[in-house]
Each structure stands twice: as structure tokens, then as C-alpha cells.
């Protein structure tokens, strides 16, 4: 049975100094910015839980709405980072949506967009699980960043459309558990709540054994 190493990834925010006042300028910047800029603007909302007003799912969409581009705001909101395994694919899809929008891209926006980059730092927590019992003990010891890393960011690291926990459960033959964990909705709950849900899912299985 392979072991599971609990890791974490923390970050802070760096303003790139790039500010866009038109969709055209936004697009131009989007083509070239570091992929951690896309990570920041698309993923932070899931981490922060309702960092932005609820009507839109990410800061790109929110900016569009603030400037009256409601259709574009909706189209960008439907992008679900959890369905992606590459930030470049997200970048590509956003660019396509904007290029196909039919909007006049040179209209001056009343509110500018500030491109911010996530400065990410990986951390090993030195917590290892070898079975369900040690896994649930490990789960109890980790924080929100670690949870986010394994449930969300790991998809990008591994290039697989599944969270890290479920991947490990599959590897040890706990297929049902893997499915249950993947079903936990990150958009509907805070990470504090998600952690509680995961613990009870694994404990239920553990005590049923």
C-alpha cells in the first residue's frame, strides 16, 4: 500500500503593475501574464470563499460586470477551474470567449483591472498516511491551504481531473471513498466545512470496516 504525504501550498499576492482600461488591453495582457496570475484570479475565489460578490465566479467576470459587460461576465463565470488540469487551457478559453464576444474591445472601462499574481510556496507538512486511520488523523492536523492544495491545485500539478485524496483512495482500492470525496462541493462550503465533511466521510468508512 503506497503512502500519502500531506503537503501544502501557501501564497501571497503581488501586483504585476499591469492595469487594463479596455478589454483590448486586458486581452493583450492576458496573453502574456505569468500563469500564476490566472491562478490568482480564477482560484482565489474558491479558496477565499465568496471573496467576490456572489453574482460572478471570478475576478475577471466581476470586472466585466462592473463595466457593464454582463454577457461576458456570465460567460467567464461558467468557467469552472475544477474542470481544468492546465492553467494554459483556462487562458486559452478565456481569450477565445473575449475574441468571439463581438464587443467593441476598445471602449474605455470606468474601472480598471489590476493583474495580480499569486506568489506560491510549497510546504511539506511531514505528515504521512499509510491507511485510513492514519489518513483521517492526518486530515485532522492539516490547515485550509493543505486542503486546498490536495483538492484543487493538485489537479494542475498532476495534470489529472481528480483531487489528490481521491487519487490515493483509488490506488488503495477505496473506489467508493474516492467518488464520495470528489463529490464534495467546494463552491458551496467554506474550507472549514469541507474539512469537517471529509473527516466524517472517511471516519464513516473507517468505522464500517
Amino acid at each position, binding site marked *: 500500500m503506497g503512502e500519502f504525504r500531506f503537503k501544502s501550498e501557501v*501564497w501571497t499576492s503581488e*501586483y504585476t503593475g499591469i*492595469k487594463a482600461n479596455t478589454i483590448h488591453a486586458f486581452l493583450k495582457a492576458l496573453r502574456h501574464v505569468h500563469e500564476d496570475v490566472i491562478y490568482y484570479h480564477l482560484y482565489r475565489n474558491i479558496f477565499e470563499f465568496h471573496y467576490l460578490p456572489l453574482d460572478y465566479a471570478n475576478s475577471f467576470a466581476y470586472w466585466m460586470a462592473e463595466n457593464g459587460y454582463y454577457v461576458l461576465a456570465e460567460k467567464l463565470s461558467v468557467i469552472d477551474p475544477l474542470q481544468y488540469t492546465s492553467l494554459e487551457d483556462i487562458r486559452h478559453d478565456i481569450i477565445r470567449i473575449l475574441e468571439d464576444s463581438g464587443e467593441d474591445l476598445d471602449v474605455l472601462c470606468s474601472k480598471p483591472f489590476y493583474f495580480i499574481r499569486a506568489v506560491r510556496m510549497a510546504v511539506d507538512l511531514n505528515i504521512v498516511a499509510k491507511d485510513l486511520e492514519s489518513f483521517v488523523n492526518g486530515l485532522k492536523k492539516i490547515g*485550509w491551504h493543505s486542503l486546498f492544495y490536495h483538492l484543487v491545485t493538485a489537479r494542475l500539478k498532476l495534470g489529472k481531473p481528480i483531487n489528490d485524496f481521491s487519487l490515493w483512495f483509488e490506488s488503495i482500492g477505496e473506489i467508493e471513498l474516492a467518488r464520495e470525496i470528489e463529490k464534495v462541493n467546494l463552491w458551496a462550503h467554506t474550507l472549514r466545512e469541507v*474539512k469537517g465533511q471529509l473527516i466524517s466521510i472517511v471516519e464513516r468508512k473507517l468505522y464500517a470496516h
Partner: protein
Amino acid sequence: MLIEQYATYIGEGNIEEIKAVAEPLKGLKVLHVNSTRLGGGVSEILYRLIPLMRDLGIDAEWQVIKGDEEFFKVTKKIHNLLHMPGHDKLTSEDIITYMRTTHANLSYIDTSPYDIVFIHDPQPMGLIVNKRQGQKWIWRCHIDISTPDEETWKFIEMFVNAYDAIVFHIAEFAKEGVKIPKFIIAPSIDPFHDKNVELDRNFITSTLEKFGIDPKRPIVLQVSRFDRLKDPFGVLQAFKMVKRACDCQLVLAGGYASDDPEGEEVYNEVMEEASKMKDVFVLNLPPDSHYEINALQRAATVVVQKSIREGFGLVVTEAMWKEKPVVGGNVGGIRRQIVNGFTGYLVNSIEGTAYRIRQLLINSEMAKVMGRNAKERVRHTFLITRQLKDYLVLINYLINSDHIQR
């Protein structure tokens, strides 16, 4: 360990993560410099941040520059002119005063033993001239300098460019064209500060009774110093509109410094206006009335922060931590704290303020849910442990930055 006390609020797992981020920084010498040990948001945070850093094995210290009244008059002027152009100008005498005091502080504050130096706000920023090779200097700018007086900026810029990084509260506060790395780290509150600790129900009630406020009727509260930019007159007008539909009380709690003639003028005007109205309480409290403010916030039904212009406005977060829905002006850092429709409302007018206060007073269940959401948001994003984590990541990044391809 001190850091472990915070597990009560954020859980042990998050404490372990902070320890892991601090691990590579053990033994590092970090200095924070500001201009006062007492009063103001910066010293409040440093008071707790330094022991927390030390607790994590970082050799952190805090030093305060010295200056006479003349120096602080000049730095106040610099502060105002960096915030926005005004009638005032920075004179050559002001520059001489600033440089003379900075020079005196260079011999008083020895920055050479430190690996990392945080300089808070413009007052001590001239100390950068003593930067030695291998050190990383960070300017923690707590104000909005996006549209400064250009002459003042030119003076400050010669210091700024020598720093390794600037930290702003929000990206909108950054001055365009600054070439050094610009980080965005929001300020935070300490749940163990007197302003935020849990209070006994009897103390809350007796505080209300002390001021003649009825504990049984809904309370609308704004906590802010008496300043036109906090729009106390707008709050009074909004309250008049609310009062037509709801039986409630308004509390405007704050203060003004003895050397602030404008504050006194605003206070007197507010008092005069309030005297014409029923159920309005204007409380001019001493600056150390932390428990009283805490009690008022906990007793409030709806908290208002109707600022016209705002730096960050952490008083919003303080109320959110006490599970209060906040109706706040759609400006500055308030926009970053309130999630519209989820933890409270962002408003753009007196009418909007009245409408949202009324909505929250009428829908008490909705107000409760928003209050709970507000507390969770603060727990996640605006506690001192998050700010500490941000600083630790920043330091890690800077000490490794020479090897990073950017």
C-alpha cells in the same frame, strides 16, 4: 506557545502550516520600524506580530524612530500629500527637517544586524540609506498613494527605489510606474485585542445603560472618528429615513484628538444635528475605550461604515468578527471586506444606506445569517494569523528571489 492560542479560532492545522512556512526562517533577524509605539493600527498589529514572529523562531524586533513636533508636522504633511494633492506644498525647509531627523535616527537605530527590515509608512523610510548588501528592505505603505502630489512623490521616490519591495493594502493604492515588486497584503485584526475579545453579557448591558441606550431596542451603530470623510451627517440623514419605518436607535461613537480642531468642529456640528432628533446617541470616547467600543459593536443590530473615502477601514472587520452585518460605503478597503449581499451591503448613497439598514432591521433572520457569514469571512481572511502567514511567504520569497527567474 503564543501562536497556538490562535488554534481556538482557526484550528490547529492552520497553526501547523504557519509553523512550516516559518521553519526556513528560523534564526533570521527581522526588524520592524515605525514612528510610534502607542496608538494607531500599525502599532496595534506590531504589538502582537513581533511576539508571534519570535514565537516561531524568528529573531524579530521592533524599533521606533525619534522625532520632534516639527518633524512629525512635516511627515503628516508628506502623508497627506502622498494621499492626494492639496493646497499645501512640501518646502525645502520641510525637506531639511525630514533629512535632519532621519540623519539623527540613523545613529539611533542600528539596522545593520538585520537580514530583513520592514519600514512602516513614510516617517522612517529615509533609514534606507543605511541599507547594506545582502539585506532585504520592505516598505509597508499603509496609505493610498495612487494619486500623490507629484513633487512630494519625487522626494519620496528616491528612497522608494532603493527598497526591495513595497507592500500595499490593495492594488488600487499603488503608484503607477513604480518598478520594484509590489505586494498586496491586507491588514488584519487580533481576536485577542481588548477591542475584539468576547465580553460578558452583563458588561454589554451595563455599557449601554451607562450611555442611556435602551438594550431592548434595535441599535444602528457607526464607530469612527469625527471626520467629514466618515460622513456622520449622511448617517444621520439615513437614520431619519429608517426611523419612519422602524423603531430603532442610532449610536455614533468615536472621538477626536485634542490637537484636531476640525474633529472638534465636526463633533459639535454632529451634536447640534443630533439634538434635533430622537434616539440618537453621539459618544465622544477616549482613544483607549476598547471595551466600550467592543460592547457597542456586540450590542448593535446593524453596523454602518458610510465612509466617502477610506484607507482600509478595519472597523468593518471588527464588527464582522462580532457577527454583525455591515452596511458600508462602496469605497477603498471597505469593498474588500464586505461581500455585497452575503456579509452585508455596499452602498453608494444616503438613500442606499437607509434602504439597506431598514432591510436588515426588518429581516432579522437574514441579518443573522449575514452576520455568521461575516464572521467566517474574517476567520478566513482578516485575522492576524493570515497577515503573519503573508509576511512569512514574502520573506521566504525575498530571501530566495536572487535565485528565482522572474
